[in-house]
């Protein structure tokens, strides 16, 4: 396992340096490119470096500063996007060969445009499971993304490149998408902060879809402060104040969410609840069926989306994705409708639970990242595929559309993470709890080395 080093700076700290003229945006961006070129050979998190365009935008930032104009709160900060966000002038592949002949995007995805307007610089596209259908970022076309904390282990997925590039310290923040856990699972396995905002809150214009009923986009970052800032810019609604954490009622999810987890994760959850001073445990009903519903809705909507191409070009798909999409395309309507009816029922149960607590705490995965050569986990005593089952704790929550902040626990060894789950639109409460856990030393992201912040390139 690689020995982690202390993070040097996050996005806001880097922007402050650039805005103050102590570093140039160009030096930061070119340094980040050089760092990725050298170090990402180990992790395979980046699929394309947007070098020329990134340097050109960094030059614009430097000119704005020189001219006394406001370059934005994220001035000159490089970031990466899962390869399903449109970036002007680039082909959005969604991690597949199938879309590679599409024309380049005419404009940025809305959330990318908002970040660019805030001074941030899109620097790279990032690896993912093909069409976001998986939890492992094992991609036949682009290769497997490796966990920076142990390259013999999976990074998780489907936003695995987004998590790994932050965990490696190559980028201070990235964008991912989350349909069944695709921000939360890799955030947990790579030990970074991640946010799945409330379903329907973030604009999805310019984001390649997977499951319209569940898709959400959100940020991943090395500090919770950065996560909050990036989230506010993406949503075009900055969180100006957070509630006092003592006023936030916290409960732990039991039952399904207390089964199958490692001893170390149980102990870490105990420590979190003890620190927050809450001992309430809430058990949601019918979680297995909630997960089944999310699984079925994903298969049906994803399969339907791809059916025209599956009829003509099936063999161009990643074999791991193709069979799942074909099976989903054939799902009977009765099953699909039942899943959507169950979703309505489960929503009522979850809202009843949220009447008792403001934030629900649950594990994100059953344990640490599985080995790449043994991509499986143990569930109910059975060995099952990691690619399909790493989301057993995230999929039921996806069905509800609730906001979830993925917090990396401060543990020795490989990362572990928890979900902080809130009521719709209650992201501020999640950030209040997350900041408390970070300041108490119970949660932290420890990138290997913040290469983007290295001061080896003078202005």
């Amino acid at each position, binding site marked *: 396992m690689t020995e982690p080093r202390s993070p040097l700076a996050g996005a806001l700290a880097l922007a402050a340096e650039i805005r103050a003229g102590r570093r140039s945006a160009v030096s930061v961006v070119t340094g980040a490119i050089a760092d990725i070129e050298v170090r990402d050979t180990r992790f395979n998190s980046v699929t394309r470096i947007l070098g020329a365009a990134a340097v050109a935008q960094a030059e614009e930032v430097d000119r704005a500063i020189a001219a006394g104009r406001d370059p934005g709160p994220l001035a000159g900060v490089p970031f990466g996007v899962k390869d399903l966000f449109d970036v002007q002038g680039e082909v959005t592949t969604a991690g597949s060969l199938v879309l590679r002949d599409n024309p380049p995007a005419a404009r940025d995805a809305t959330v990318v445009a908002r970040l660019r307007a805030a001074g941030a610089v899109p620097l790279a596209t990032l690896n993912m499971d093909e069409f976001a259908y998986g939890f492992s970022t094992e991609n036949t076309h682009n290769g497997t993304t490796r966990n920076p904390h142990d390259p013999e282990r999976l990074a998780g997925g489907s936003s695995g490149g987004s998590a790994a590039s932050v965990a490696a310290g190559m980028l201070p923040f990235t964008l991912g998408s989350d349909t069944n856990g695709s921000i939360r699972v890799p955030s947990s396995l790579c030990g970074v902060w991640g946010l799945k905002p409330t379903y329907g809150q973030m604009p999805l214009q310019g984001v390649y879809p997977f499951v319209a009923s569940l898709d959400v986009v959100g940020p991943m970052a090395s500090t919770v402060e950065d996560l909050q800032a990036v989230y506010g810019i993406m949503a075009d609604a900055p969180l100006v104040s957070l509630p006092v954490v003592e006023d936030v009622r916290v409960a732990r999810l039991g039952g399904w969410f207390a089964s199958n987890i490692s001893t170390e994760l149980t102990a870490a959850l105990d420590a979190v609840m003890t620190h927050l001073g809450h001992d309430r445990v809430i*058990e949601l009903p019918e979680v297995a069926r909630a997960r*089944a519903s999310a*699984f*079925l809705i994903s298969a049906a909507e994803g399969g339907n989306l791809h059916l025209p191409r599956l*009829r003509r070009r099936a063999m161009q798909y990643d074999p791991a994705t193709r069979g799942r999409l074909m099976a989903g395309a*054939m799902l009977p309507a009765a099953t699909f409708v039942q899943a959507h009816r169950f*979703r309505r029922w489960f*929503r009522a149960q979850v809202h009843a639970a949220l009447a008792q607590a403001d934030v629900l705490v649950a594990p994100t995965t059953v344990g640490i990242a599985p080995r790449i050569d043994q991509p499986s986990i143990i569930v109910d005593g059975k060995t099952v595929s990691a690619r399909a089952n790493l989301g057993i704790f995230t999929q039921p929550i996806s069905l509800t559309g609730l906001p979830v902040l993925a917090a990396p626990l401060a543990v020795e060894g490989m990362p572990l993470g928890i979900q902080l789950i809130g009521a719709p639109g209650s992201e501020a409460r999640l950030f209040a709890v997350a900041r408390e856990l970070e300041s108490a030393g119970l949660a932290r992201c420890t990138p290997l080395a913040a290469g983007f912040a290295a001061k080896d390139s003078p202005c």
Partner: protein
Amino acid sequence: MSSAERVSPSTPGNSGVAGDDDHKVPPVAEMARLIGLSIPAACMPDVLKNTALLQGYADLLGGFALPDDCEPAYEYEP
């Protein structure tokens, strides 16, 4: 929650599909034909495996009685 509810159906994601639930595997070739999908022979084992997996989840879900006034969440608001 009963243990029967907790266990995922037919161990989702397992490479093996065979077993007691084999009789539940839908007629994949017929279903594919109905939607104009031709499944290459090389893909058929994986499609069968995933169809059986989805059928397991469908059975789990179908075993839960919902009230008639529980509408589908097509226009879902969290």
